[in-house]
């Protein structure tokens, strides 16, 4: 190993360092700036890592320490194309989250920002782990800070809602853990460089080579699927989500919806599909059917939500459902679209939360029926919202268009009628998004919105960044699609 420190290490340790610094920061201001500075640093690292992708730079991207050697485990971090896409979207998201919530005040800010950065550390770890036990460790590490963030800083109904969220996702994780342990006992041993040999191993490659029978793969795939399906979530495992998005503090909702749901999709890409090739055929058809049903179901439910936050939540379930369906279809075009869409979805939904959060902050109201005429008071906010909403319904020349087009065309190859059915969601999406715009932003001001002002500088900056990403990658999708293609190739090759 010629390198002093690798990209995945930086991506994981920098947020951890930020978290520790935040915990000991003296003031709110210090904690904020530490978090923001480190998140920008992580972004810089992530962008830099995009330039070192070739085989020649392998030592920049993979690293392994001894850790729990007697178990055949090691602290093995790596950054492949999928990982690069996922870490990039995480790295882009965090500064947006932090910048856009500058106006918010939180109780005990050092702990708040510390936990937020700790969650980022966990998420980065999930995307970089090349070892099953390590993966599980980071998977939980990402969940626990978020649990505390929701249950201490959330809305009035936070306790029952967060409890349900935690138990539900934790239940999924446990099933996955059971699966991991079972596979572990079917792996071959390994010999470490120092000569120690162990009977079994947690490493990704030994998991791939575990040689499980079709029946074993069948029920193991089901365990992993449940864990990931709850996380994404796939219909009908989604009911924790709208309430959690509603009750969590806005920055946490952004992290949850922009980044953490992608952990479920990532699980499918890195673990579920490659590990259980014999089971995936049968499971895929069911999963795709559930996903498409979920797209329509969630779109319909989004139509009738009065609470904006729940509307956004259901809209997100529909979008994630489409990505899940295409990952399971393993149609190359569709997977390329899904890969790039994971990035776009993060940017767009964070953009939406920024706007929703600002409206809620300024008026104290989050129900569509109580708001009206915001455009009269906040023209810039409205302009940004319209753009972001259009990106959410995948209008051409916004970022989501190329991804959604590729996904639908992949789904069309899988099954014409399913594609047509799922396609109805683009109409429904237009209805609920434009309904919201019309009722909240257009019309005359009412007593609630009378006193509203337009956005602050920090918010303007965050929204401009979102808008810039939307338009640049909309006009030139290749900027993200290039990485999406590499990720798709990696994903479809690991099918042993």
């Amino acid at each position, binding site marked *: 190993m010629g390198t002093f420190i690798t990209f995945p290490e930086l991506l994981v340790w920098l947020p951890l360092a930020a978290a520790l610094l935040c915990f000991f920061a003296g003031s709110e201001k210090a904690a904020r700036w530490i978090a923001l500075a480190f998140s920008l640093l992580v972004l810089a690292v992530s962008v830099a890592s995009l330039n070192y992708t070739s085989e020649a730079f392998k030592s920049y991207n993979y690293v392994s320490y001894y850790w729990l050697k007697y178990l055949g485990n090691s602290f093995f971090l790596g950054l492949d194309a999928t990982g690069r896409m996922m870490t990039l979207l995480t790295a882009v998201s965090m500064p947006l989250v932090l910048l856009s919530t500058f106006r918010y005040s939180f109780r005990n800010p050092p702990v708040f920002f510390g936990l937020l950065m700790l969650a980022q550390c966990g998420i980065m770890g999930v995307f970089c782990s090349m070892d099953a036990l390590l993966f599980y460790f980071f998977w939980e590490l990402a969940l626990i800070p978020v649990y505390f963030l929701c249950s201490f800083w959330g809305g009035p109904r936070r306790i029952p809602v967060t409890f349900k969220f935690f138990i539900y996702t934790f239940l999924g994780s446990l099933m996955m853990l059971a699966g991991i342990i079972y596979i572990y006992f079917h792996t071959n041993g390994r010999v470490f460089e120092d000569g120690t040999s162990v009977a079994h191993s947690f490493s990704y490659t030994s998991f791939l080579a575990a040689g499980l029978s079709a029946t074993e793969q069948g029920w193991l795939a089901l365990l992993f699927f449940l864990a990931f399906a709850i996380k994404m979530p796939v219909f009908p495992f989604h*009911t924790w989500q709208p309430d959690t998005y509603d009750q969590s503090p806005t920055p946490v909702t952004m992290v949850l919806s922009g980044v953490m749901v992608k952990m479920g999709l990532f699980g499918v890409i890195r673990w579920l599909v490659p590990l259980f090739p014999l089971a995936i055929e049968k499971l895929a058809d069911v999963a795709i059917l559930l996903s498409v049903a979920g797209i329509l179901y969630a779109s319909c439910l989004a*139509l009738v939500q009065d609470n904006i936050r729940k509307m956004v939540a259901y809209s997100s379930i529909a979008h994630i459902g489409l990505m899940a369906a295409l990952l399971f279809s393993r149609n190359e*075009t569709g997977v390329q679209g899904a890969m790039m869409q994971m990035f776009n979805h993060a940017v767009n939904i964070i953009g939406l939360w920024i706007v929703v959060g600002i409206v809620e902050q300024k008026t104290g109201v989050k129900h569509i029926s109580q708001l009206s*005429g915001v455009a009269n008071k906040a023209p810039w906010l409205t302009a940004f919202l319209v753009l972001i909403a259009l990106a959410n319904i995948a209008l051409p020349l916004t970022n989501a*268009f190329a991804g959604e087009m590729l996904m639908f*065309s992949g789904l069309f190859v899988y099954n014409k009628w399913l594609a047509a059915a799922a396609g109805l969601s*683009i*109409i429904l999406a237009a209805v609920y998004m434009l309904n919201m715009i*019309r009722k909240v932003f257009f*019309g005359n001001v009412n007593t609630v919105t009378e006193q509203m002002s337009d956005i602050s500088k920090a918010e303007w900056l965050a929204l401009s960044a979102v808008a810039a990403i939307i338009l640049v990658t909309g006009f030139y999708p290749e900027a993200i699609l290039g990485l999406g293609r590499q990720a798709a190739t990696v994903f479809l090759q690991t099918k042993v």
Partner: protein
Amino acid sequence: MSNMEKFVWLIPSLPLLGFLILGLGRNYLSKGMAAAIGCISVLGSFVLSLVAFMQISGAGNPGKKIHLFDFINSAAVKIGFDFTVDHLSGLFLLIITGIGFLIHLYSSSYMKEEPSVHYARYFAFLNLFVFSMLLLVLGSNFVIMFIGWEGVGLCSYLLIGYWFRNADYGKAAQKAFVMNRIGDLGFLLAVFWLIARLGSVSYDEVFSAAALARLSTVDITGITLLLLVGATGKSAQIPLYTWLPDAMAGPTPVSALIHAATMVTAGIYMIARSNILFTMAPITLNVITVVGLATAILAATIALRQNDIKKVLAYSTVSQLGFMFLALGAGAYTAAIFHVMTHAFFKALLFLGAGSVIHAMGGEQDMRQMGGLKKSLPITHFTFLIGCLAIAGIPPLSGFFSKDEILAAAYSKHVSIWILALMAALMTAFYMFRLYAMTFRGQFRGTEDQKHHLHESPLAMTLPLIILAILSVAGGWVGIPEFIMKDAHCLADFLDPVFRSSLALMHPHSISHATEYLLVGISVSLVLVSLFLALKKFSSYKDEGMPARGFSALLENKWYVDEVYDKIISKPLFRLSYLMNNILEIRIIDALVNGVGRLVHYGSRQLRLLQSGQVGAYVLLMTIGLLLLFILKYYF
């Protein structure tokens, strides 16, 4: 000889630049500056379009494809950001930028009363529209066309909802967008179908003989029917036409540009562009004929009983678009494009004339309050009369030639289609001269205050009227039919390269010159009768305030189509969604999840009782367990 690569990209970029400057600088720009930026960017595009048009119009020039950059490279399909400048797109470029410029100019005066921030916003949207429309016609594949296709829908949404404080306008805007999206889904599915079968969306590949040979009849019929769904949305045909009349909520120049001259013809452009696919799908062509004919008649009947000046024009647009579809269905692609062109002239003229009237009337749109405006608005009156004569199809005005060609095509398909189309044409003449008579003839019926303020519009508004009036008169002379003058149909010759392969596939029944004279004679004389009937009946119109009854009530309420749609689609959808939200989501799925949670909770509570802390109990349980283990071991 051609250096088009160097400047064609500028044609859409100029309005885009205008949009960006106006949009970002709307707080700082004066009205004069905003209008100047809006107008000059479109004028620049017009000049460049003219240059491009000159370069391709040479005989035998097949057009030019220009690659800008790779847009989407995927496993199944590679899509370039490519433009095609050929005879068809060249013609549309001129229509869009030419009429677009006139309407920008007109707007600079029409919108004068708006606050400067909104004035700039208006021009920004208008520029964005021109950009999208240019992308739509310049695109060299279906995806670039789709960018423009949804872009114009967006601009239409933004401009219908321009006065966003009015809740009804917001609803109209949303309706337009959603109905367009329904069509867009059809368009998209057709694109996916093409990608799945051919791995390409670019015109030169899809329309090549090799690619067409790989498509089965089912493929071609399916793809063309889906494209047709897209066209019915954009071009306001049955069943997706109801958004267009509501779209009149937007400022009148917008109605002229977007909802009459350009955007709504996108569906016709798309079908004409893919003419070879449609020619190979006779079933789809028949469907198009039926849709076009039904729309032409239905909309014309509704226009007979509308009292809002813009609503009459809106239904007239729907009806005229029906004529164009009828032509497409008959395989008379040139006739359809010809009518797109002449209609763009006279309908833009009529809308702008109506705008001038509304301007003079202080915002009044109800024709029952007008009358006798001939004297106070001489230029508007004269140009409007020309527009009415043109749309009615009086020779030698432009509408006569294009409509005559469509009627001839209808006749060659079947005589009954000709009769039905002629009926729609007669109604056209009637409702247009009803409108004309109610507005300009007779006595003024408005308030004293309005009467006092009546005035002719300023030059920025009348100049576009005059130019469009000249075009409405002379625009048809590029398509003089064979039976009147030999080899004088310049437009057919000009568009020949685009439609040649379709024409080779079809064997149109040619009609003898004698028959054609007869047909034209019948139609023109009947139109004249209809026209004079309307003039006679409505020149001395008096508002009796009698509510319409029976059949006329049906027409006045637009056949209750909106209400029916609401009952059978919108309401059930929302009812179903509420049902799912309140029953399935909360009472079933979430209740199940919570139930499982409670069960675990309950179970663990019971299990907890086992941990009583008494050693005796533990020993007992252990013994039982060991015993069970031994028994199991022994028997199995």
